[in-house]
């Protein structure tokens, strides 16, 4: 169910530079990075979006008509009114730090760790920002578009066991 117009209007009245759109029943707002934390706080306390469904990211490197490198995506839901809202915010190198949403929704913990693991986005205020899927010694961020699909040889950087090393 799309977000109610008054929810969007209340958000747009408080935060300048916010753009809202709707596509096939999904409402989306784009928030400036500096007002992201305040907007999310407002959505949680006033908009009653009590569930953070997902946090993910898109790398727009070499994407046609793209002006920014990374697009951060937050999917929010209100479990009482069934409203759903997509909040997006764009980031550019070298400043890839955004405020963490763990103080608002503790479910953001592992979601933000995954975004950090795959894209290298740093979440300021995250209690435990480490890799969640890749090994700790892995040095790259594999879902960035400038990282080759087959890797840079990390997958074969292991000792070889022979039969006499049993």
């Amino acid at each position, binding site marked *: 169910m799309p977000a109610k117009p008054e929810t969007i209007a209340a958000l747009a009245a408080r935060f300048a530079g916010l753009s809202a759109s709707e596509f096939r029943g999904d409402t989306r707002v784009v928030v400036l990075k500096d007002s992201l934390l305040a907007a999310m706080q407002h959505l949680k306390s006033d908009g009653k979006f009590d569930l953070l469904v997902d946090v993910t990211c898109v790398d727009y490197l070499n994407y046609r008509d793209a002006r920014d490198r990374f697009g951060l995506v937050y999917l929010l839901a209100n479990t009482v009114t069934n409203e759903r809202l997509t909040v997006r915010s764009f980031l550019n190198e070298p400043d890839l730090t955004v405020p963490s949403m763990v103080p608002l929704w503790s479910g953001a913990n592992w979601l933000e760790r995954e975004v950090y693991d795959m894209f290298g986005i740093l979440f300021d205020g995250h209690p435990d920002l480490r890799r969640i*899927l*890749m*090994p700790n010694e*892995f040095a790259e961020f*594999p879902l960035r578009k400038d*990282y*080759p*699909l*087959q*890797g*840079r040889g*990390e*997958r*074969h950087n*292991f*000792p*070889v*066991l*022979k*039969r*006499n*090393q*049993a």
Partner: protein
Amino acid sequence: MAVELPDNVVVTKLDELASWCRKNSLWPMPFATACCGIELMATGASRHDLARFGAEVFRFSPRQCDLMIVAGRVVMKMLPVLQRIWQQMHEPKWCISMGACASTGGVFDTYCVVQGIDRFVPVDMYVPGCPPRPEQLIQAIIDLQDKIQREGTISGAEFETATRQMTKRALQELPMYGRQ
């Protein structure tokens, strides 16, 4: 001097007897990480009944196993675990690489999937298929039994000696091809 043997007595070598005992009681370690593991379970279950070939005792402790069946793709985070489990198994031990992913990486040619476990651990039998039918796995175990009987059981130290002598010997003299 010819010795008359009674009809119910067979003479063999002690090594061959040991190989015969080992091949008929393989204890598999199921290293199942993906859909091949489902076929592996089906192979051990009643319909295909791996017990007919003496290899039905799946153990989840590597200390009790002598046959590691790697069923499914292995990612770079799992490979050190695989190597540790392989090292924890007692000798003599064998390894079956089951399915396309374990043997070559399969369709998963990505940054984190190891392109064939034989790059990092020794493999005795490869089973093709995606996933292989239980009959194929049973055939691999029968072939492995054949290999154990012909090749004998080689410990790590003996393997090193054999590898050093390999350059001196012709291929036909290797135990696997030489007999029969």
